[in-house]
C-alpha cells in the first residue's frame, strides 16, 4: 500500500491532467470492491480531436490546431467491428465529428448496425455554411442529434464556447426544427446537453429541462426532446482553467 501511495503521489506531481485524487482502481480495492464487466451495449466512436471551437471546459483539448482525425482505414475497421458486435447504440463524437471528411460514410454504414445512432454536435460546425448536406443526411438516417447548448444566456455560452457561438447555435437549432428535428412524433430526436459555464456543479436536470423548454419556445420558437446536464470533467483544458482561475 505504501508503494502504491508513493506511486500515486509521483503521478500527481508529474501529470498536469490529474487532480490529486486516488486512482479509481486503488479506491475500489480500498473499499473491497471489484468491478465485473457486463455486456457492452453502446459503442462510442471518437472520430478525432479536430474542432472549430476551443471550449474552455473541453477535457480533450480539442480545437482547430489538432491534427488527430480518423482516417478511412480506421473507419473501415470501426464499421467492421460494429457489424460483428451488434451494439444497441452507436454514439459518434469528437472533436467536432462533422469536420471529419469521412463522417457521411460513417453515418451511412453505421446506421443499419444499431437501434440508435447518435451524433454529438457543437451546432456551430454543423451550421458553418459548408455542411448543409449533413442536415439532410442526418434526417434521412434518423440520426439522434445530441447538441451542446450550455446556457440560455448569450454571454455565458460565448464565454465557454467562443464569441458568436450562441447565435450560431440558435440558428442551427431553428434549422434542425425546420426539417423536423425535436418535434414530437417526427421520429427525429434532438437532445440538448448543458455543461456548467464555470467552476460550479450543474443544476437539477428536470428543472433545467423545464426552463430551457419554456424559454427556448418563448424567445426563439425552438423545440427539443430531452435535455441532459453534464458536469465538467476536471481534466485537460478545463483543469488548466480551474488552476489558473484559482478555483
Amino acid at each position, binding site marked *: 500500500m505504501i508503494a502504491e501511495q508513493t506511486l500515486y503521489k509521483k503521478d500527481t506531481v508529474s501529470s498536469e491532467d490529474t487532480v490529486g485524487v486516488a486512482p479509481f482502481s486503488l479506491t475500489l480495492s480500498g473499499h473491497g470492491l471489484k468491478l465485473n464487466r457486463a455486456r457492452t451495449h453502446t459503442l462510442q466512436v471518437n472520430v478525432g480531436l479536430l474542432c472549430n471551437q476551443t471550449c474552455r471546459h473541453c477535457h480533450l483539448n480539442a480545437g482547430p490546431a489538432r491534427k488527430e482525425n480518423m482516417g478511412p482505414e480506421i473507419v473501415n475497421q470501426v464499421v467492421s467491428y460494429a457489424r460483428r458486435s451488434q451494439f444497441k447504440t452507436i454514439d459518434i463524437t469528437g472533436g467536432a465529428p462533422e469536420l471529419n471528411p469521412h463522417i457521411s460514410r460513417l453515418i451511412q454504414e453505421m446506421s443499419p448496425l444499431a437501434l440508435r445512432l447518435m451524433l454529438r454536435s457543437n451546432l456551430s460546425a454543423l451550421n458553418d455554411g459548408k455542411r448543409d448536406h449533413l442536415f439532410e443526411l442526418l434526417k434521412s438516417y434518423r440520426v439522434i442529434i445530441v447538441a451542446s447548448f450550455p446556457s*440560455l*444566456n448569450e454571454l*455565458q455560452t460565448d464565454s465557454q464556447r467562443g464569441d458568436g457561438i450562441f447565435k450560431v447555435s440558435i440558428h442551427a437549432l431553428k434549422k434542425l426544427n425546420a426539417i423536423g428535428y425535436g418535434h414530437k412524433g417526427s421520429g427525429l430526436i434532438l437532445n440538448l446537453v448543458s455543461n456548467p459555464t*464555470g467552476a*460550479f*456543479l450543474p*443544476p*437539477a436536470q428536470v*428543472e433545467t429541462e423545464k*426552463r430551457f423548454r419554456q424559454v427556448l419556445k418563448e424567445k426563439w420558437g425552438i423545440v427539443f426532446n430531452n435535455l441532459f446536464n453534464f458536469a465538467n470533467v476536471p481534466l485537460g483544458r478545463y483543469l488548466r482553467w480551474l488552476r489558473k482561475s484559482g478555483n
Partner: protein
Amino acid sequence: METYYNPEDLLKFKEIGKEVPELAKKFFEYYGAVFAQGELTEREKALIALAVAHAVQCPYCIDAYTQACLEKGSNPAEMTEAIHVVTAIRGGASLIHGIQMRNITEKLSM
C-alpha cells in the same frame, strides 16, 4: 490582514449550535425546509435569497447564494436583475419617506 469577516467562517456556521443545540437544530431544519422545492423552485428561492443577501449586506450570504444561484441554473443577467429589484425597493423605501418630509414641511411652512 485581520478582518471581522472571514470567508472560512461560513463553513463553521453549524458551530453556532454548540451552546444551544436545540434552537440551532430547529433553525437548520427550518432553513433546509424553506429552501426545498415547493410552490417556488429551488432556483427561484436561491434568487430571492441572493437579493435579500444584498439587502441585509451579508457577505457570507452573498458568497453562498451566488454559488447556489449558478448551481441552480441562474445566469449572471438574472442574478444582476434580482439585485436591481432589491436596489429599487431600498431606494423606493427611502424616497416614499420623502412624503413624510413634505407633509411636515407643509405643516411648518407659511
